């Protein structure tokens, strides 16, 4: 397993170079720069770009960035003049990560049992019902569900706060009460996907011969399901955890905006639109790292779920 982990981290290096290189090139190919506004005279814009070294050849700028990045210095933001990029992204990342974990937890908590029940009662009302609810969850996007939940639980019933973030330092209860609505909004669609995947996969596995053998052996239905079937049925779900994590991070953009949560999501789009080159690069690096890390976790989980699987070591 250690070899697997080391290998994965080593793979991050080429991924890093390719992704950052392409991103850097394409960002600088986009028209417009960070200092363009409809008011600033073009000559002034040019001088500002010069002051920040943006008129140098692109490859030269990239090497400078690489050199700094190697020392973990991602530079100052061009929009937030003078403030280092890391000062925004790291706190934002922490917040988004917490929101994401709660959302995923919610998704698994609702999705797994729902999928299992649906599979065990295939074709009956539990199955159709669970599928129906799941579909609604997936086709009602966060942009609709968020304000709806906010209106119902916060404005009408007054059970939960309307929006904003309360860190753990403000107390466990404010922390949880502020995080519920955004986590549910973000996790609802995901729980639907998990439910459906679990169902499909469990049905698949339940038809396997070794399940029949277990039944024939006289084992109780429940034992068979839990001990034998579920483990293998979880493979697609585990595989999906990878894209799930990524989806949570990017999907958080909308949820964070609706609930005024100071997460990292906003920087994905805003940094590109404001041509804040150092910010874009930092966001890309963080994102790439998360992807590689989550895939590592997925592969490690594979090891536990199915020791027979060939892991490509």
């Amino acid at each position, binding site marked *: 397993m250690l070899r697997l982990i080391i290998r994965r981290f080593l*793979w991050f290096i*080429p*991924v890093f170079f390719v*992704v950052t290189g*392409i*991103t850097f090139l*394409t*960002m600088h*190919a*986009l*028209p417009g720069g960070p200092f363009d506004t409809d008011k600033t005279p073009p000559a002034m814009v040019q001088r500002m770009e010069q002051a920040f070294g943006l008129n140098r050849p692109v490859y030269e700028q990239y090497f400078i960035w690489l050199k700094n990045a190697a020392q973990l210095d991602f530079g100052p933001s061009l929009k937030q003049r003078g403030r280092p990029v890391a000062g925004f992204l790291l706190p934002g990342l922490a917040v988004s990560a917490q929101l994401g974990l709660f959302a995923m937890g919610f998704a698994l908590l609702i999705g797994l049992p729902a999928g299992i029940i649906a599979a065990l009662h295939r074709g009956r009302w539990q199955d159709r019902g669970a*599928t129906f609810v*799941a*579909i609604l969850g*997936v*086709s*009602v*996007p966060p*942009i*609709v569900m968020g*304000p*709806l939940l906010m*209106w119902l639980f916060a404005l009408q019933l007054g059970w939960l706060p309307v929006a904003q973030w309360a860190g753990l330092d403000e107390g466990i209860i404010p922390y949880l009460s502020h995080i519920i609505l955004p986590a549910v909004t973000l996790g609802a*669609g995901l729980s*639907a*996907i998990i439910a*459906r*995947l679990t*169902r*499909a*996969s469990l*049905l*698949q596995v339940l*038809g*396997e011969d070794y399940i029949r053998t277990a039944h024939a052996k006289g084992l109780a239905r429940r034992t068979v399901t839990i001990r034998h079937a579920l483990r293998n049925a979880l*493979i*697609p779900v*585990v*595989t*999906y955890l990878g*894209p799930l994590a*990524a989806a949570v991070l990017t999907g958080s953009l909308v949820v964070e905006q609706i609930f005024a949560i100071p997460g990292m999501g906003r920087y*994905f*789009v805003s940094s*590109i639109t404001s041509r804040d080159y150092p910010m*874009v690069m930092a*966001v*890309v690096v963080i*994102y*790439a790292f998360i*992807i*590689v890390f989550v*895939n590592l976790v997925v592969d490690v989980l*594979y090891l536990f779920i*199915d020791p*027979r*699987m*060939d*892991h*490509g070591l």
Partner: protein
Amino acid sequence: MVSSSAQAAGSRAAAPSRRSRTLWQDTLRRLLRDPVVVICVLYLALLIVVAIFPSFFATASYDQTSFPNNFAAPGTVVSEGKLAGHTYWMGADKLGRDIYSRLVYGTRVSISVAFLGAAVSFLIGVSYGLFAGYSRPRIDNIMMRIVDIIYAYPTLILIILLQVFLTALAQKEPEQMGTIERMLVDLDRNSGGLFFVFLAIGAVSWLNMARLTRGQVMHYKQQEFVQAAQVVGASDRRIMGRHLLPNVIGPCIVAETLAIPSYIYTEAFLSFIGLGVQPPMPSWGSMIADGYGALRTAPWLILFPALALSLTMLAFNFLGDAVRDALDPKLRDR
């Protein structure tokens, strides 16, 4: 064939014999037996008809505005102007346009995106994942790292670049364009702006499918039936297509159908930043995005497109379930 003579012979055979069918014929037959499936197929067929002949179903033009009636509730009748006498079946949007008619015209865009997006992503993704999962570890590793790279790259940048390039291109006179450039512009124009939407969606969506498929393949390729086939000397292609595919495809179909709303929202986002269909041409995704903010004052702006989307999703999903069940070799004997 054997069956007729067997039946004629009556009690001679111990078990009833059957005509041999291909996997796909069998699937089709089983599918059509389920009433839910039939309803779903009919609904999707209806959508396709609406997409091809929207003017037949719509009650007004999709871009006819009527400012005094903006946000009008369903059932309101227009008193004056170009739309005088018209009833808003599903209410009016923020510029007074008929939501029902916009929904009808929007079907074309949304259905194309849903069907084609799903089909392309599924085909590419499943093939890639199948191949990667079954290959030697080194090849698998490289293929999966490519997936990681594409995944980590912010495609938004590429999309904006594409949009800027295309706009600049479209402004040029036809004589000034090179052959490739002209081909691209024509493709885009003929598809109503959707070509680049598919490009953008297709570029990223197959990744999840690939990963999912690969994970499934990694599990199933250790199973006895695969080993048996290998021993017998079946070619890799046969093993992948005939043995692995029907077993791994179940969750893949489900995942693909679940990804459809994301294609629709991606299309809405793309049209917002200038790629794809331009306003006032509607699409379900952009109608939902438009209605955001009016949730408390005029919920019908979001309600109806979301309903349409949900119904379509239900149809796709039940159909997907049925296809999965029908393809499942274990269920064949029932």
